[in-house]
């Protein structure tokens, strides 16, 4: 294992700066998930009047499949689900101590986290505008707690800026805002914007910018009590003889701009990251378990679908045991809701239309990587006063997220220690679990020097090696052209899942697509 105290090389930094378009494209791709419109949930379904003896076959017991099963069963349909794994939930998944996870290639990790600790390899946050998921949590008694997205005391880090020292979010945020406010306030104050701003408005704008940017009476953003009230003091406010604070020195605008740290200032302003957002108490799969309690009896586990075929008024799915059996069994139904990821469906023998087949074959699944590392103590809280939230870095780990639960507890805690997409994630995918952890430790220790002393254990998930999805979420090649056709009934089958939504990779997208499929299917059946 090598150790590179300088982090990424100068060459790579210049490459990044030179390739602004590439980096920008990546950031844009990463935030695509967040820029979609909010949920179009229209309230609870209350489907009535399923014709007697109408059989619906559902492929996949992830959130989409279980949502469909729950609603259709409640409407009076006979529902069966085929699921490849030995448990339900799909990507709504949590790894805890005592779990074993074998990824493609046969690499097995025996998770050794302490009681109560976990890693959510897939979804980990629930936005407050994801109404459908939140409503099912409420109905199924899944306890939620706040997830902390923005922590002003967490870090922004770039290995080429500020001598590689992580900077507190509050310092960078205050400095950036202050300098920008100063520039604008002075332009306005000197009537430089006569064309754009009326005299009345200009006066108010200057007052607003002075407050917004923590400027002094001269409209300067400088070291002083105004700026330190937001960015923190070099000698803190206190009591007794030593109580008087000393202002902290502000960074120059040039230093802030050249640090690139401004890139992540708005991460928490994204529609789906805006406070308040949530996580289930105890791990994301508490949602899966909530659904499973409702529809678990409908699920056939360990069923690997091998063929989907339509004949007359029937649709059939053949399957074999997922652990290698060769005896093929067949389920036949009147209709099918297929939630299998297209990365998997494209490899299953089927008789969907050429148009649907082409769409299925054109959707690979994204690469993403997550690592959770358990440390002997919560040093980020005890030493650095970071309580929840996320630190961002230009290192290949991309971010470190601190657990928003069990704060101030003694004993081990788990950090989400890496969550890259794109080129970095591909390279983590290609390593063995041990090699990945070694790299995550190497990078993370550049932000938290306690890493090696406090290391206890770790786990990681490379989404391209997840046996039941072959990737993280569906990548449309031409969504505008193909999306509507993918939602259409093909034979007697409707597709559902996060890929059949404009909220890709979100649980809400999976649930909404299932609700929409269920409603349309019910209409088709009852109006036939």
């Amino acid at each position, binding site marked *: 294992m090598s150790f590179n105290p300088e982090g990424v090389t100068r*060459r790579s930094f210049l490459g990044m700066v030179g390739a602004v378009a590439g980096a920008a494209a990546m950031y844009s791709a990463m935030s695509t998930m967040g820029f979609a419109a909010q949920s179009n949930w229209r309230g609870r379904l209350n489907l009535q009047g399923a014709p007697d003896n109408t059989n619906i076959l559902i492929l996949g017991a992830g959130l989409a499949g279980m949502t469909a099963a729950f609603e259709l069963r409640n409407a009076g349909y006979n529902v069966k689900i085929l699921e490849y794994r030995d448990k339900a939930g799909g990507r709504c998944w949590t790894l805890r101590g005592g779990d074993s996870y074998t990824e493609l290639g046969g690499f097995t990790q025996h998770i050794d986290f302490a009681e109560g600790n976990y890693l959510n390899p897939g979804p980990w946050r629930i936005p407050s505008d994801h109404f459908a998921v939140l409503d099912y949590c409420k109905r199924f008694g899944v306890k939620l707690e706040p997830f902390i997205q923005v922590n002003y005391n967490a870090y922004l880090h770039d290995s080429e800026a500020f001598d590689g020292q992580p900077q507190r979010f509050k310092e960078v945020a205050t400095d950036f805002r202050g300098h920008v406010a100063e520039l604008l306030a002075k332009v306005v104050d000197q009537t430089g914007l006569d064309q754009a701003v009326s005299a009345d408005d200009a006066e108010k704008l200057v007052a607003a910018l002075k407050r917004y940017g923590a400027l002094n009476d001269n409209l300067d953003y400088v070291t002083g009590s105004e700026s330190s009230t937001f960015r923190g003091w070099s000698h803190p406010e206190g009591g007794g003889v030593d109580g008087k604070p000393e202002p902290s020195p502000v960074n120059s605008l040039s230093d802030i701009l050249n640090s690139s740290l401004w890139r992540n200032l708005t991460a928490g302003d994204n529609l789906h990251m805006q406070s308040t957002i949530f996580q289930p108490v105890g791990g994301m799969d508490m949602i899966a378990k909530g659904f499973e309690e409702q529809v678990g009896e409908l699920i056939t586990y360990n069923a690997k679908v091998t063929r989907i075929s339509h004949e007359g008024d029937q649709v059939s799915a053949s399957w074999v045991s997922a652990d290698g059996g060769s005896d093929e069994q067949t389920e036949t139904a009147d209709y099918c809701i297929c939630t299998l990821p297209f990365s998997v469906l494209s490899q299953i023998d089927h008789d969907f239309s050429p148009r649907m087949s082409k769409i299925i074959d054109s959707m690979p699944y994204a690469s993403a990587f997550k690592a959770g590392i358990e440390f002997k103590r919560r040093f980020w809280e005890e030493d650095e006063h970071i309580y929840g939230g996320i630190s961002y870095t230009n290192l290949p780990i991309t971010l470190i997220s601190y657990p928003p639960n069990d704060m101030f507890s003694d004993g081990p805690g788990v950090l989400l220690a890496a969550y890259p997409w794109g080129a970095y994630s591909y390279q983590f995918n290609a390593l063995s679990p041990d090699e990945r952890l070694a790299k995550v430790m190497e990078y993370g220790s550049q932000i938290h020097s306690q890493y090696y002393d406090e290391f206890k254990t770790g786990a990681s998930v490379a989404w391209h090696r997840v046996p039941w999805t072959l990737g993280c979420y569906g990548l449309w090649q031409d969504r505008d052209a193909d999306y509507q056709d993918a939602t259409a009934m093909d034979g007697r089958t409707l597709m559902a899942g996060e890929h059949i939504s404009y909220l890709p990779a979100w649980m809400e997208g999976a649930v909404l697509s299932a609700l929409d499929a269920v409603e349309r299917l019910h209409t088709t059946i009852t109006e036939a």
Partner: protein
Amino acid sequence: MKILITSIAALALSMSALAQESSIDTSTWFDDPSTLTQTDGASIYAGVCAGCHMPNGQGAQGAGDYPALTNNSSLMATAYPISLIVHGHKAMPALGGLLDDKQVASVVNFIRTNFGNDYADNPASAELVNSMR
């Protein structure tokens, strides 16, 4: 620094109980957020392809499969792996943005002459890759 190295060694030791294969040299990896920077075919294979097709080209089987590249007669035609790598197909993502023409050619030539494949004839070139983008 010395303390750090000692603790790295301790970590390596504590993790070796789980070790499933020997460490590989990743010193040229993780050098750019949006592209692979490895240049020779073997390193490109190890840095991206091995994620799915596995370090020895044996592929993998789950709910869907990653095809084995070992003794794979589909690699006989040079254009086939180039097209798959650049444009993707089914579960295979397009890697044309991650790899430049030269890198695609290098890794195509690597898989066509390794893992039991003996297709040294008609090697891929950056020009050929470029013409297929």
